[in-house]
């Protein structure tokens, strides 16, 4: 029984690892909302960004996935520095359920 349950456990783990691949193979749901972005009114970084979207959705996605955590961490760290500067202890807490 224990061996069977362990086997089931590892099968589930394998399934989790394989799931994103399966989802990608399925090709996803609905059609894209904007197939080609209108770059005529844009300039500078915004125009470059829209052009990247038009040229390759994959590159655009990869860059998005890199930029989102990066921006989050940068501004989170800025908030950290400000709170540290104020003198807040950012490493421990005492409160429990009470």
């Amino acid at each position, binding site marked *: 029984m224990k061996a069977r349950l362990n086997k089931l456990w590892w099968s589930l783990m394998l399934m989790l690892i394989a799931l994103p691949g399966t989802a990608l193979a399925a090709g996803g749901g609905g059609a894209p909302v904007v197939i080609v972005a209108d770059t005529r009114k844009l300039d500078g970084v915004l125009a470059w960004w829209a052009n990247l979207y038009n040229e390759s959705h994959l590159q655009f996605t990869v860059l998005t996935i890199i930029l*989102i955590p990066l921006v989050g961490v940068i501004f989170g760290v800025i908030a950290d520095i400000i709170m540290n500067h104020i003198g807040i202890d950012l490493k421990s807490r005492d409160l429990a359920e009470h």
Partner: protein
Amino acid sequence: MEWLYILMPIAGVKIFWPGLIILGVGVGIIGGFFGMGGAWMVTPGLNILGFPMAFAIGTDIAHMAGKSLISTMRHGKFGNVDYKLGMIMLVGTVVGFEAGAQMVMWLERLGSVEKVVRWIYIVLLALIAWMVFHDVAKRRQKEREAAAKGVKLEAGATGVEWHKALHKIKIPPMVHLKEAGIYCSAWLPILVSFLTGWLAGILGIGGGLIRMPALIYLIGCPTHVAVGTDLFEVMISGLYGAATYTYKGRTELVAAIIMLVGAAMGAQVGAVATKYIKGYGIRIAFGLAVVGCAISILMKLVQPWVPQYKALLDSGATVLVLGLVTCMSLYIFVRMVQGVQMELARKRAN
């Protein structure tokens, strides 16, 4: 005042960018404090700012991934994240979510399910609100009983203790979850996360609103650990969601980044605020947020019966959600400032 508006490169709409930062700060504080993504708050907010609905969801998920990353890091430093529990629950969440999403598609082929789904959502939110306030009432009752006996209730005591019955199930493999202080069968978090994932998949939501109380009441996590661990899950699912939505052309990254500027800072404030607010304070505030969310959905649901009030109910629901975001984030911020003042006063006295 043209400089206050920015043209979104993909969606092609002009958006008031300071509004994005303000919305980001508000939902960042609430997300970092309660341990949820908060799509139910962000989507109406983005809609008001002029976003097409299709972009509102993708943009929300993208900013959510960034803000939950920074909140998870902060909660991790406080010892509020049980990474082992988070990884185990991820198995159930992913499988459950997929099962729920497939079920909705199957139901859609049978007929319109949107209304049914919304009613299920209402029932679920009512159940969660009941659980929270029932727990609070039970805990107060225990406090009164302890006071009558002349003793003080221990700090870790909780009102309802359903998790204790579930911990008696000893199906291998057993796991010890250090941060949560739990020793249970690995199947318990898997089953709970499968159920919450399945519900989230059916309802088309991130799931933080369901997972947070499930972590507390069914798995037995202390409130702070439930918040941190839930954020860890939101972070992973958010990154995956951001990738798929972006690939499908449903994310406006410029807006997500502008929101993230406010949300990353707000998330830090929310996470640090948990340091100064008792576990039960977090539970009560969470219960109120759930009630607000339920009322806003109810206002949408009753519209077919009172079509003459449709516009009023629509605006009312939006005002309610945004009012709730403002009040809650202000409350959390004020409590954090008060806590910081006390902490600094203690430091100066020592």
